[in-house]
């Protein structure tokens, strides 16, 4: 029996799938991809905020903060998503990007925020700079793949 080719959400795996003769249409049913994206964003933002802990704090204070930070980062994103929704509402009201669904708009704003954090991480003098660089490279590759797919008619507009 022929297995249907896997479908992806991000442009890079979709382009790779297309090059291998698979399905390049966007799909939101790949759990591994969702986990990868979710964990990557969460890790980048966690490391970004973790760097603000002063060196003068005692080890137990730092340990406590790092545990609390896991929840604070989540809170940060919830507030960020709310602010993004207000920005998108405002843009829609002034007739800008009206055809862009809110989730796709959020996707752009969330990725932009994480990328800004990754830029800051990449400039640090520690191992976390590698992670920041990996994020930046992955995002750049994804954007290039999106452009290639758009020009090769493989990324039709989606409501």
């Amino acid at each position, binding site marked *: 029996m022929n297995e249907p080719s896997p479908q992806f*959400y*991000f442009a890079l795996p979709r382009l790779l799938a297309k090059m291998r003769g698979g399905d390049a249409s966007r799909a939101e049913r*790949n759990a591994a991809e*969702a986990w*990868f*994206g979710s964990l990557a964003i969460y890790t980048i933002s966690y490391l970004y905020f973790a760097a603000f802990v002063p060196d003068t704090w005692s080890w137990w204070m730092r340990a406590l903060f790092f545990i609390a930070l896991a929840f604070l980062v989540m809170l940060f994103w919830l507030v960020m*998503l709310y602010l993004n929704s207000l920005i998108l509402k405002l843009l829609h009201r002034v007739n800008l990007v009206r055809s862009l669904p809110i*989730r796709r708009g959020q*996707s752009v704003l*969330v990725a932009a925020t994480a990328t800004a954090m990754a830029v800051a991480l990449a400039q640090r003098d520690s191992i976390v700079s590698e992670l920041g660089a990996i994020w930046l490279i992955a995002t750049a590759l994804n954007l290039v793949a999106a452009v290639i797919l758009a020009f090769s008619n493989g990324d039709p507009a989606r409501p």
Partner: protein
Amino acid sequence: MNTETGVAHGATATEDRLGRFAVKGVFWRKYLDWAVVNLPFFFYPVPLTFFTFFFFFFAAPARRAIVANLAVVLPGSSRLMNYLRAFRILYNFAWTISEAAIRRILHEEFSYEIVGTEWLEEVGAAPGAIVLTAHMGSYDLGAALFAEKFHREIRIVRAPEPHPETAEHLQASLERSGESGVKVDYNTAGALLSFDLLKALREGEIVSIQGDRVEGDIAQVASRLFGAETKIPIGPFVLSLVAQAPIYPLFIARIGCRRYEIIVRQPIRVQATGDREADIGKGVAEWCVILEEIIARHWDQWFALVAIFAK
């Protein structure tokens, strides 16, 4: 009980105090709807894990009920393991209600596999049938898929919500979603709904009822599940006996990201032999065998968030 809005007077003192922020309060329903519209696809896993942690600690009665149920379903397992399993069940619940909201609000496509195709086709063509299901997987989604696949109306009987605002929100969102094939009735202690359902069955409609737990004052019958004493709603079996409509056991299990398995079993026919109690008892026993088999296989998706078994 207000049957029109589906409100039960069953909220606990803590729930009353927390009002719209209680576990079953309207705040969380509205927040979920907001999140479905706003969250990108790749953002879900981490927040859902966090919310599972949140509800694992704050929805203590549900957590305790799950652990108590698991002690019977999986005998010999340690209490600690059952707490971890309770977390897994709540995590699956978070995914399931999120995906049901995605379907309801965004009308996204879902894929499904059918186990027992012949029985499902039979339900689809049946002139009046009872679909007996459990608090498992996404029963709302299952009903919507059924209505869509067979172009038939299905009436779901569900437990009323403890908060008026939640009930109103649920009703409004169901109407807004345009699931025209799905009609919701609320389970009440009165006999009015029974007559409505009997009429619907006689007119050839499909009625879907959850038959794994009893909440409130609804009619019930004692039975055994996993060797332990439990109560099962008697309504579906009485309806089947009176209307002579078959009961199709049907379950929806989540098997992946936006992928579901629809499991349909051979129909239970409650035959009238003159001994009403024995006839119903036979049907209930058949149902319990099937329910036991399905729960044993999909215990991690059994969302009976109240203690089912007698202590």
